[in-house]
């Protein structure tokens, strides 16, 4: 089956979603699906045409072309998309995003008719609204099928677009089980780890504040912040301001294959996100048998079972976050048990194999190889 996979961020852009996408396309390619990727340049100086393994990657200047007044560039990008659709002739367009570049797909649907699968896993886009006169609504309306990465995302989307319930499936996000050996966490000295893009939504500033409440109580405690992003410098300054800089390790950008080793050094993985559509970091921690302390927001409430695999605390409270971390550190045996339970639950509920099978099956249904989905 020929699939035009559309995602603004794709390798070598990095993040939980991008890593999942790279793995998914790799595994589905191995099952015989032929992919071409449509991605955005997103500020990196990368070739317009590239390859990810055997998969062609076409990058477009979507953001630049969508700036008001850039109509000539808009027309050029649109022409390129039309040409790509006509030359590749996909059976299916799988848009793994809910962002502005979808406008180019919506405006070129007649260039080559194909089934349209939309995967919703970025919450931010849902917050802008726009009613029925919006890219989001029109994309959801145009999709032959919609998949959601979490119940939270499905509920949020259906709240905005209530008339799509018959054409959607929940396919929870998943990750490949990290190959790093799984050992029990060490608590001597305690080490807290946060992983993610350094942007405000990830809440690492709250983690720093919580850490400042713990530093005098636990000898030798350290906090590792792993990742890069726009607020990295701000966070470093904030650590100095809080007087904890000497105990905080800013690891910077780390290649995805090296994240499990860093995460395995954690006594507790802290996920202080202000909002998460799913919570891939918490899931990766679970696969590594690390207990998690997270805010009870979005999809995190589906990945972390409060009191069983970690603790969920009210959002934005550094005090409650610190209290929950302290409960973990004060009872390493219980925390270790939580980590083991988290891994067991993750293997049962967020199987990578099932994730890949679900998309493989849905592709077949949407393209008529199985009969019970009607493409409009």
């Amino acid at each position: 089956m020929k699939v035009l996979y559309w995602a603004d961020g794709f390798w070598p852009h990095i993040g939980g979603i991008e890593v999942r996408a790279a793995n998914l396309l790799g595994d589905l390619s191995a099952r015989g699906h032929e992919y071409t990727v449509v991605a955005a340049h997103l500020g990196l100086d990368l070739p317009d045409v590239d390859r990810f393994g055997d998969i062609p990657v076409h990058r477009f200047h979507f953001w630049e072309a969508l700036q008001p007044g850039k109509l000539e560039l808009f027309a050029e990008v649109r022409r390129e998309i039309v040409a790509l659709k006509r030359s590749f002739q996909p059976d299916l367009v799988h848009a793994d995003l809910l962002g502005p570049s979808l406008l180019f797909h919506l405006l070129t649907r007649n260039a080559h008719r194909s089934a349209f699968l939309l995967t919703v896993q970025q919450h931010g886009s849902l917050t802008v609204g726009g009613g029925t006169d919006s890219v989001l609504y029109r994309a959801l309306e145009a999709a032959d099928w919609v998949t959601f990465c979490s119940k939270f995302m499905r509920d949020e989307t259906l709240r905005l677009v209530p008339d799509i319930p018959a054409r959607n499936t929940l396919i929870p996000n998943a990750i490949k089980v990290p190959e790093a050996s799984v050992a029990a966490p060490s608590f001597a000295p305690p080490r807290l780890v946060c992983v993610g893009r350094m942007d405000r939504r990830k809440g690492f500033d709250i983690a720093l504040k919580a850490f400042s409440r713990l530093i005098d109580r636990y000898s030798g405690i350290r906090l590792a912040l792993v990742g890069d992003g726009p607020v990295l410098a701000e966070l470093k300054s904030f650590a100095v301001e809080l007087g904890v800089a000497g105990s905080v390790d800013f690891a910077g950008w780390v290649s995805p294959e090296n994240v499990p080793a860093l995460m395995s050094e954690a006594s507790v993985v802290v996920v202080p996100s202000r909002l998460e559509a799913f919570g891939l970091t918490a899931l990766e921690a679970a696969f590594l048998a690390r207990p998690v302390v997270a805010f009870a927001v979005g999809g995190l409430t589906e990945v972390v079972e409060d009191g069983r695999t970690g603790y969920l605390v009210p959002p934005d409270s550094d005090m409650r976050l610190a209290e929950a971390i302290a409960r973990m550190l004060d009872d390493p045996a219980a925390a270790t048990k939580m980590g083991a339970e988290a891994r067991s639950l993750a293997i049962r509920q967020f199987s990578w194999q099932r994730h890949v099978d679900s998309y493989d099956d849905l592709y077949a249904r949407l393209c008529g190889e199985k009969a019970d989905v009607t493409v409009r």
Partner: protein
Amino acid sequence: MTFTLGFVERKQMLRSDSWLVFNEEEVAAKVMDGEAIIINLESGMYYSMDGAGADIWSLLSEGITLGQVQTAITSRYGVSAEDAAHDVERLAAQLIEERLLRLAEGAPKPIDMAAWANGGPATQPYSTPELNAYRDMADLLALDPPMPGLRATPWQGPETDGNA
């Protein structure tokens, strides 16, 4: 024939001899492969129209009277004069309300309708023209901007060794 715009502040009447002008100070537009793409540069809103809608846009933005546009659409699509009149007036009102076109005053400039008629009958059947608005574009672009300055990463992809 008249059509009342839904303005609260002022009501404007459209007649068959009314003509509109392109709001070039605030709007950029282009017809691509039979689809009109219109951008309000002030608000960042995007609009699109295809089929008869794109034709109506092209004609109205050229400064042709509504009556002439109705005639052209009737001729090109074989649709009834009444339906064409209704659709053209409704769309014209909408385009004014969205500040994409403005109601002009005075006599319209002479237009060579024969040049447009030479395009022949439409290849697509007539469907009610619809102005598709995308009001969330500016917000979406502001929400998730590119990441200037972020260095290129050496990530080769998981488990690929150069092969996906």
